[in-house]
């Protein structure tokens, strides 16, 4: 650890976290509105339901990427000197992209979901006008370009400092028998995310451009199966990578709190290389019900989805348990959330792996089982990591202290999140489809349980966010104090 984060990057990270936390609350409110409508507790039109659904999906993936990027940049800066201009550029492009997406949804009534499955946007453009689809797809493209520039820059920096992405992933240790440990976990994870997410963004850009061209000139068409492959190669990998970025905080902070090393030994490096490969391969589990896809490709979707659970279960989560075991670690907001986030990640991976089993997928695909598992590892895993980092940032850069209200808000968040995902998984088990504005009477109770749970989750998120903004004052005063000290 011989580098320090640039002060401008630190300020930008505050912007990333502030935006992520505020949008998180808004998106959670959208989620509650959808559940209340499905549970007959309120009534909104289907048009509004699907607009809110599109905003909720896009917004949640967006803030997950924002939070993950903040974590990656903050910890990677300890090992590699980084230019904050790239982080700022990404934020600016993200902001422009989000503004276009919001205009598409709330001004031009775009409601084709964050997965914009071709040829749905062009079909909607014919019915409701092209502006919504053009704004949405262009906004997503701009947002993607921002992240692609960021990853290209990070790739250049890792190549300069570590001699290439292969070395950053420890290939010289795995394949050439080099002794010792590999680069820090933050570097290994960054290399993995650069490779996988750049691939995802290129796939996404291809399908976005093709969809845009198809809307502008319907004579230009695309094979819908190819488009679906590209869409999920983008969506699955991009969403997955948010957690691979955020987990850097778990490695760094648990190691710091326990005063125990979390070295990137050979097994650790093999696990991350497997994650790199498997994450690229397993998006096909989204196409298990597309029987026209070659069978071997779908079997790969099942088998490697199983295998992709192994690195997190055997190395990362197990490593977290090992490092905390008999460590006499101080339990505060950050350490509690990072520890619980590992539980959330693995707990979500379990129903996800089960759903990747083709015979199970045949009777559970696109039911609420699917949001059940991804809300578990995104909400109780990834978001817990981001919120934990918000506290850690304020504590490290300022002087935020853990209070009893933090213990209360963590308990509130996790208890009711278990209720929310439990209601989703149960609804999926009894066949309730996902993405339906209105539900049959037998599905309504689970929606109501989900909605009530959601209200308390929003309350917990408001407390987290209020505590974060309150804690930022100590960050500012510490920076101000340091500046004055330096001047004198």
């Amino acid at each position, binding site marked *: 650890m011989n580098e320090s984060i640039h002060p401008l990057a630190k300020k930008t990270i505050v912007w990333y976290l502030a935006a992520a936390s505020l949008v998180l609350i808004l998106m959670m409110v959208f989620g509650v509105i959808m559940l209340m409508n499905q549970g007959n507790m309120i009534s909104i039109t289907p048009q509004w339901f699907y607009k809110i659904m599109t905003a909720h999906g896009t917004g949640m993936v967006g803030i997950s990427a924002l939070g993950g990027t903040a974590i990656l940049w903050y910890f990677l800066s300890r090992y590699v000197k980084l230019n904050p201009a790239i982080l700022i550029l990404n934020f600016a492009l993200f902001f422009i992209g989000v503004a276009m997406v919001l205009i598409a949804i709330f001004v031009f009534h775009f409601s084709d979901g964050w997965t914009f499955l071709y040829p749905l946007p062009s079909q909607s453009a014919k019915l409701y006008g092209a502006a919504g689809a053009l704004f949405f797809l262009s906004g997503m493209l701009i947002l993607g370009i921002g992240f692609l520039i960021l990853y290209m820059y990070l790739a250049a920096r890792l190549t300069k400092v570590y001699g290439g992405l292969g070395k950053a992933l420890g290939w010289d240790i795995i394949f050439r028998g080099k002794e010792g440990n590999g680069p820090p976990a933050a570097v290994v994870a960054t290399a993995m995310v650069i490779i996988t997410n750049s691939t995802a963004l290129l796939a996404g850009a291809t399908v976005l451009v093709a969809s845009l061209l198809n809307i502008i000139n319907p004579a230009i068409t695309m094979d819908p199966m190819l488009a679906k492959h590209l869409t999920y190669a983008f969506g699955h990998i991009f969403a997955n990578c948010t957690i691979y970025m955020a987990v850097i905080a778990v490695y760094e902070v648990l190691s710091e709190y326990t005063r125990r090393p979390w070295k990137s030994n050979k097994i650790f490096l093999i696990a991350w290389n497997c994650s790199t490969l498997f994450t690229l391969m397993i998006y096909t589990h989204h196409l298990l019900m597309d029987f026209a896809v070659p069978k071997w490709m779908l079997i790969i979707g099942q088998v490697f989805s199983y295998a992709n659970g192994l690195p997190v279960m055997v190395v990362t989560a197990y490593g977290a348990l090992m490092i905390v075991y008999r460590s006499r670690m101080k339990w505060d907001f950050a350490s509690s959330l990072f520890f619980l986030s590992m539980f959330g990640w693995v707990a979500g991976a379990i129903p996800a792996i089960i759903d990747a089993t083709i015979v199970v997928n045949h009777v559970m695909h696109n039911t609420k089982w699917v949001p059940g598992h991804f809300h578990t590892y995104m909400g109780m895993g990834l978001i817990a990591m981001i919120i934990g980092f918000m506290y850690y940032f304020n504590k490290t850069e300022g002087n935020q202290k853990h209070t009893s209200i933090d213990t209360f808000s963590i308990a509130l968040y996790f208890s009711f999140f278990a209720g929310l995902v439990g209601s989703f998984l149960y609804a999926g088990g009894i066949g309730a489809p996902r993405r339906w504005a209105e539900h049959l009477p*037998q599905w309504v109770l689970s929606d109501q349980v989900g909605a009530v749970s959601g209200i308390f989750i929003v309350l917990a998120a408001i407390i987290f966010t209020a505590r974060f903004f309150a804690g930022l004052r100590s960050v500012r005063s510490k920076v101000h104090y340091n500046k004055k000290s330096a001047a004198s």
Partner: protein
Amino acid sequence: MYQQIAMYATVFFVFLLALAFAFVYGESKRSADYGPIQKKGYKIRKFYFLGLIAIMGFASVMTLGRLPYDRHQAEATGLNEIKTVEVTGIQYAWEMSEDQFQVGDQVQFKVTADDVTHGFGLYNEKMELVAQTQAMPEYTNTVYYTFEEPGTYQILCLEYCSTGHHVMVKEIVVEPEGGSL
């Protein structure tokens, strides 16, 4: 059946996971050297890893022979002729070449779409999802199902297809063998 297995398996494994995390949390208040913990932890990890491989291998062996993609599933159940039904999804309806069936009918649904991608989800009278495939323009996905119980079945759209997605429902009637309901 698979829905129940999925739910029970999830509850079981998440419970085990919660136990492991609760145990480590409890032990975190004590202190010990990390070296011996790592040594023992790595030994346990080998068995844990092999255990996971065994579970995943068992699940693969048990399930990969029963894939819903092949016609052998229908052929293996009897000598009856397989009925072919053409299904087309269009915002927001299902067009079918036939929608009256009898118990024992082995049906080959050839599913496609005219406009955007839809999801062909077949629900029985108890509203259990019993089979599905995607309905994609330019492609035909073939899914087999043998009706074993009489009743009113429903086809629900399971792939988001715009604002009328939830009204894209069609009822089909399955009569008892040799008679009407």
